[in-house]
């Protein structure tokens, strides 16, 4: 009976618990994170005797949480993925809204810029079109600024969002830690408290909204959390500790974000966060912000540089070379000092073209009392104090520094943000070309008109060595000898860069010829096959067709017929030598006159009359080009002595030594008529009644000096010119001879006399060579010819010294060096031949103005004439002898004495030849290597954002349904289903009622017993 009661009571108690659990479930049906619980009933212990056993009723064994950790983890992953897509979609939509407009974006602004270019070139003289272009240029810069700033702001906002989410994460981590502590307090209980576990799981879900996590559980139910998809690396929270998460932005590149734990105390980097709200923003920075910002900056840079390049190639309305329209460099700011000093640092930009856009760190070194500045990206360093110039920046330190003081210097803006107008007035827009072509209106018979544009000058010959790479250059200009292999015939060995002077080259074993790049041959044997005059050999296009021998082997400077009246010699040239003392100073009056000694000559020697030139005088004397024969060395020496004045030839074996005489001459017009005459020579006084008597007196004195009279003049010369012991010193005289040492020691030259046949120079035992005294303003090419057995080339030269950097590439045609002007400052004349089919170009700034530097056949179907850095296009047919001029636009560069049709040039205000070049920027497809123009590139990057957004939106939908499924799966197990709870309630209620019936039955049985006993 007692059993019956206790069984009934156990049922009552068990079902009351079960009903409580069900009620609790129903009550928590809408509680987030609540996990359905279930009372687990079990039969109670046995009672009775050995024969039979009766169960002891029911007891509540446990209350189960219907939780599945796999499904929970799945749900968290899905939550994190949706969180990531949500923030990515949010970021991208914002970006698209800010820059994606098809009607008001940068693309439209660029189009209106190019439209304004079109208006301006149609009417450059109009102030209105100029102002229109100016404002279009300004609004384009502002458009770039807007887009750049917008994206930068969005980038900053995103970083702020990440920091907010990080704060949330840290809050949750702390809560998880305290829940862990609570759970651990109940570690000894059989069942951990379900509420704590629910709290724990709820916190984990909240955490996974912000970032993807992985978990490990202790037996107690305490959780250890790791970032990312695997439970490895440093724990963010565990039973024993909780960490703080921080986002670290690269100060100089906000697109780069990394995450560390405990940054303040013991920094520990963790895996990149790719999911959750934080992961979504990180992805947005790397996929949305960074590529877009980079592209916009690139477009801004390319656009600005291209516009500046055109602008600086032209001339503005004020007649000045155009200044860059846009400033492009980033702005810099310094922060610090980090330690203690009271100094400050100001950073400014000195050369925008080389500014790196990278960040720098400056650290003070007390020992050396200097600042060390380092480029954080490249590691390049510089040290100094005060104002330090480095990589286009000026770092100006002021105040007192202490050891270890540190400044961080970072770019504060990007190209798109900082592009701004660098000119202040529409008149500074360079519409005009640097050169103007004009027709000689007064004299031209034809009515052809000419327009000129500036083009890039031909670059230094590609792949061809300059002379210093072939003949090594020493300080004194002398060089070594170089062997040229026989297969190098009709090939350019080297080029002599513009500006090189005192060139003295000779060869043995073969010949070389010297050409300008336009195909004018200056020296060497004439060539019959011009097919080697190619670009590969350093010649300009068309040089082979324009081969010109007018100046070939011509000598003579002023008034001669040589190229630009230069003193060239194809032969040998010798200079006097002056002795120096122990201190390296020249010893007065110690000259050795210029001397040339030939190698052995084969006699009898036959030369063509007048084929050679000794000191500019034709040799050997004879009629026309008749042969002249010399039977022996003395024969040759005597002929030289008798026909060439001022030199002494001596036979030495089969060699001939030719030396410049050391002499002074009194011209007849300075000698007073009627004696007596006096002269002091080398300290000896002479006087006589007549010139002849004076000469005799000198000759008889035996002081190593000869005197002579001829044609009323008087000459004193050293009898042995090579003798160096005594100089020729002239003292008091009444012959009009300047007193002092005779220092006029001319050079001695033996060269070909306007012939192209090099046989004569070789026949007299001399090597063929090339000499040039003054520098030229163009490159010369040295070409090996007749090089059948291999040849050697040697000699000396003086490299240009006017520029600090003696790099030869800097000495192209446009550069300046001593005595030459840039091509844009010269004046050129294009003269048509008497049949109108050819033209020749001369540089009228040079002396003589008539030297033809280039010539060509005029082609009416392609009426373009090009030289150096300009190109002229003719419209209409030029007639015989028509002349066109190419002059600088800048008035200051026009020659004062030579107006060359200048009065009929377009002015700097009304010419449009330069501004039309700007239109080409709009259609240039080569900037990005993908056949897109600037505008198309911008459109492409806007579309790219659109495409990414569309993709992210699709992914968002997909992830959302994955989340729904995960949620469903979890809810099926752990969620509260009202229907089943209600059913349970009825079930438990009935069982409860039945149990109470057991008790009441027991009671009735008991009462019956009591009454009947």
């Amino acid at each position, binding site marked *: 009976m007692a059993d019956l009661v206790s069984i009934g009571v156990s049922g009552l108690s068990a079902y009351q618990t079960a009903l409580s659990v069900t009620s609790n479930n129903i009550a928590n049906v809408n509680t987030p994170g609540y996990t359905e619980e279930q009372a687990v009933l079990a039969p109670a212990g046995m009672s009775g005797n050995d024969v039979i056993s009766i169960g002891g009723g029911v007891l509540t064994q446990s209350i189960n949480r219907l939780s599945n950790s796999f499904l929970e983890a799945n749900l968290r992953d899905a939550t994190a993925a949706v969180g990531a897509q949500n923030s990515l979609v949010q970021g991208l*939509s914002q970006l*698209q809204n800010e820059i*994606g407009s*098809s009607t008001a974006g940068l*693309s*439209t602004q660029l*189009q*209106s810029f*190019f*439209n304004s270019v*079109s*208006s301006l*070139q*149609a*009417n*450059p*003289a*109009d102030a209105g079109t100029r102002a229109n272009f100016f404002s279009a240029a300004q609004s384009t810069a502002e458009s770039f600024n807007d887009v750049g700033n917008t994206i930068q702001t969005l980038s900053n906002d995103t970083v702020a969002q990440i920091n907010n989410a990080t704060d949330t994460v840290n809050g949750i981590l702390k809560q998880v830690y305290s829940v862990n502590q609570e759970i651990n307090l109940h570690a000894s209980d059989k069942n951990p408290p379900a509420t704590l576990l629910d709290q724990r799981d709820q916190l984990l879900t909240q955490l996974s909204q912000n970032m993807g996590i992985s978990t490990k559980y202790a037996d107690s139910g305490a959780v250890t959390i790791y970032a990312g998809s695997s439970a490895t690396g440093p724990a963010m929270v565990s039973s024993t500790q909780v960490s703080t998460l921080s986002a670290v932005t690269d100060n100089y590149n906000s697109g780069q974000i990394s995450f560390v734990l405990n940054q303040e105390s013991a920094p520990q980097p963790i895996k990149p966060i790719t999911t959750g709200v934080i992961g979504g923003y990180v992805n947005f920075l790397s996929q949305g912000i960074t590529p877009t910002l980079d592209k916009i900056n690139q477009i801004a840079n390319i656009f600005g540089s291209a516009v500046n390049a055109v602008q600086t190639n032209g001339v503005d309305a004020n007649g000045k070379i155009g200044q860059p329209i846009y400033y492009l460099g980033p702005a810099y700011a310094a922060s610090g000092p980090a330690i203690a000093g009271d100094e400050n640092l100001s950073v400014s930009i000195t050369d925008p073209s080389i500014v790196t856009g990278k960040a720098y760190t400056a650290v003070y070194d007390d020992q050396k009392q200097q600042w060390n500045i380092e480029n954080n990206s490249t590691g390049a360093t510089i040290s100094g104090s005060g104002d330090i110039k480095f990589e286009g920046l000026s770092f100006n330190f002021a105040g007192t520094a202490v050891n270890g003081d540190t400044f961080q210097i970072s770019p504060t803006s990007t190209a798109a943000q900082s592009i701004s107008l660098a000119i202040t007035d529409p008149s500074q827009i360079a519409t005009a070309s640097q050169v103007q*072509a*004009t027709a*000689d*209106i*007064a*004299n*031209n*018979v034809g*009515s052809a*008109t*000419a*327009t000129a544009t500036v083009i890039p000058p031909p670059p230094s010959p590609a792949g061809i060595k300059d002379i210093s790479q072939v003949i090594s250059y020493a300080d004194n200009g002398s060089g070594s000898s170089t062997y040229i292999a026989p297969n190098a015939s009709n090939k350019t060995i080297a080029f002599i860069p513009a500006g090189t002077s005192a060139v003295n080259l000779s060869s043995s074993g073969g010949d070389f010829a010297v050409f300008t790049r336009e195909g004018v041959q200056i020296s060497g044997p004439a060539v019959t096959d011009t097919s080697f005059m190619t670009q590969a050999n350093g010649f300009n296009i068309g040089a082979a067709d324009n081969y010109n021998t007018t100046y070939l082997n011509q000598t003579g400077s002023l008034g001669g017929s040589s190229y630009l009246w230069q003193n060239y010699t194809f032969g040998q040239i010798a200079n006097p030598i002056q002795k120096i003392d122990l201190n390296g100073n020249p010893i007065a009056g110690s000259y050795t006159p210029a001397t040339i000694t030939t190698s052995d000559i084969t006699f009898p020697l036959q030369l063509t009359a007048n084929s050679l030139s000794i000191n500019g005088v034709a040799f050997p004397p004879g009629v026309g080009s008749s042969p002249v024969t010399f039977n022996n060395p003395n024969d040759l020496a005597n002929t030289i002595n008798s026909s060439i004045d001022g030199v002494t030839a001596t036979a030495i074996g089969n060699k001939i030594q030719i030396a410049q005489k050391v002499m002074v001459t009194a011209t007849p017009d300075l000698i007073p008529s009627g004696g007596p005459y006096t002269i002091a020579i080398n300290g000896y006084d002479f006087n006589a009644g007549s010139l002849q008597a004076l000469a005799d007196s000198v000759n008889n004195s035996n002081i190593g000096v000869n005197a002579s009279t001829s044609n009323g003049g008087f000459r004193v010369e050293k009898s042995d010119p090579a003798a160096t012991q005594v100089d020729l010193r002239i003292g008091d005289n009444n012959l009009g001879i300047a007193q002092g040492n005779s220092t006029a020691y001319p050079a001695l030259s033996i060269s070909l006399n306007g012939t192209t046949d090099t046989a004569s120079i070789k026949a007299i035992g001399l090597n063929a060579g090339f000499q040039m005294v003054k520098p030229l303003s163009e490159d010369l090419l040295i070409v090996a010819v007749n090089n059948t057995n291999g040849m050697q080339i040697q000699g000396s030269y003086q490299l240009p010294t006017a520029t600090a950097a003696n790099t030869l590439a800097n000495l192209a045609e446009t550069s300046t060096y001593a005595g030459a002007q840039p091509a844009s400052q010269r004046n050129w004349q294009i003269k048509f031949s008497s049949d109108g089919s050819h033209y020749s170009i001369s540089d009228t700034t040079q002396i003589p103005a008539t030297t033809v530097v280039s010539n060509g056949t005029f082609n009416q179907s392609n009426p373009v004439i090009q030289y150096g850095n300009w190109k002229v296009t003719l*419209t209409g047919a030029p007639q015989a002898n028509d002349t066109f001029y190419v002059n600088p636009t800048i008035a200051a560069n026009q020659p004062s004495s030579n107006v060359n049709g200048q*009065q*009929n*040039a*377009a*002015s700097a205000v*009304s*010419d449009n030849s330069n501004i*039309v070049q700007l*239109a080409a920027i*709009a*259609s240039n497809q080569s900037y990005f290597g993908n056949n897109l123009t600037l*505008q198309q590139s911008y*459109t*492409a990057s*806007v*579309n*790219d*954002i*659109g*495409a990414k*957004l*569309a993709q992210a939106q699709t992914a968002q939908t997909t992830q*959302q349904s994955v989340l*729904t499924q995960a*949620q469903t799966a979890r809810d099926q197990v752990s*969620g509260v289903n*009202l*229907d089943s709870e209600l059913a349970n309630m*009825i079930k438990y209620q009935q069982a409860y009622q039945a149990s109470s019936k057991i008790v009441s039955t027991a009671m009735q049985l008991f009462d019956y017993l009591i009454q009947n006993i």
Partner: protein
Amino acid sequence: MMYQQLTDAMSNSSATLTTLQGEIASGLNYNTPSDAPTIMGQVLTMTDRISSLNQMSDTVKAVNGSLGAQATALQSAQGVVTKLQAIAVQGMDGSLAQTDRDALVAQVTQLKATLLDIANTQTPTGQYVFAGGNTGSVPYQLSPTDKTSVSYLGSSSPLRVQVSPTSYEDVAVPGPNAFQITGADGKNISIFQVLDNLNTGLTSNDQTKMTDAENNIKSISDHISSAMSLVGAAQNRMTDITANVTELTTQSQQVLSNVRDLDYGTALANLQKQQVLLQASETLVSQLSRLSLLNELK
């Protein structure tokens, strides 16, 4: 759980409805690049192209303005030169008295002034048409000292304007190409010098000078005619370009309209469909809310 799904379905439907309403309101198929990234690219390209075509058409109009002004000026000049030719012939008539020739001199001087005005013609926007590239300044200037001789200060090169991405047009012929010829002596002479010579001839009754002048005037008349044909040809080219640009603009606008403009039929049908879907979801919610065991436990 079921409620959540229904809520999601309804929010999707309303989002689609919002997009559709936006399209119908703007009349455009696509409003943002993410709606259709590739098509949006086409739209931007076409918009820019139409803008540049419009600009080209403006430039051509400006060029045409200059050419028109020059054509008119050349025609007037030709009229004046014809009169001068008649005067020169008249002057050579030996029977004329000096007073008659003096009257002719006065006429020539008058006509020379007219010609000078013509040679300094400006377009409505103030460009000097005969100044070559130097459109901003007066090309023919009367000598301030002798008040008779005229010199050309314009450019010998015309202003070359880019009228399309690939073609250039000389806006006008420089003055000397119309008003200057090479005389019988091989030297260049301008109409103004010829008229001065004619006046000298008339004043001194120098038949040779008058004959020379008459010949030169005839040559200049030919020269003006050839300049007129040059200008005419250029005007024709401008007309061609204008027609071409108009055609291209129309085509581009057509393409733009094809890709961008909304098909109202489809859009309205979609709108209808989405509304039905939304209603269905809403009905479902109300139906579902009545389904519960509780109802059955009364």
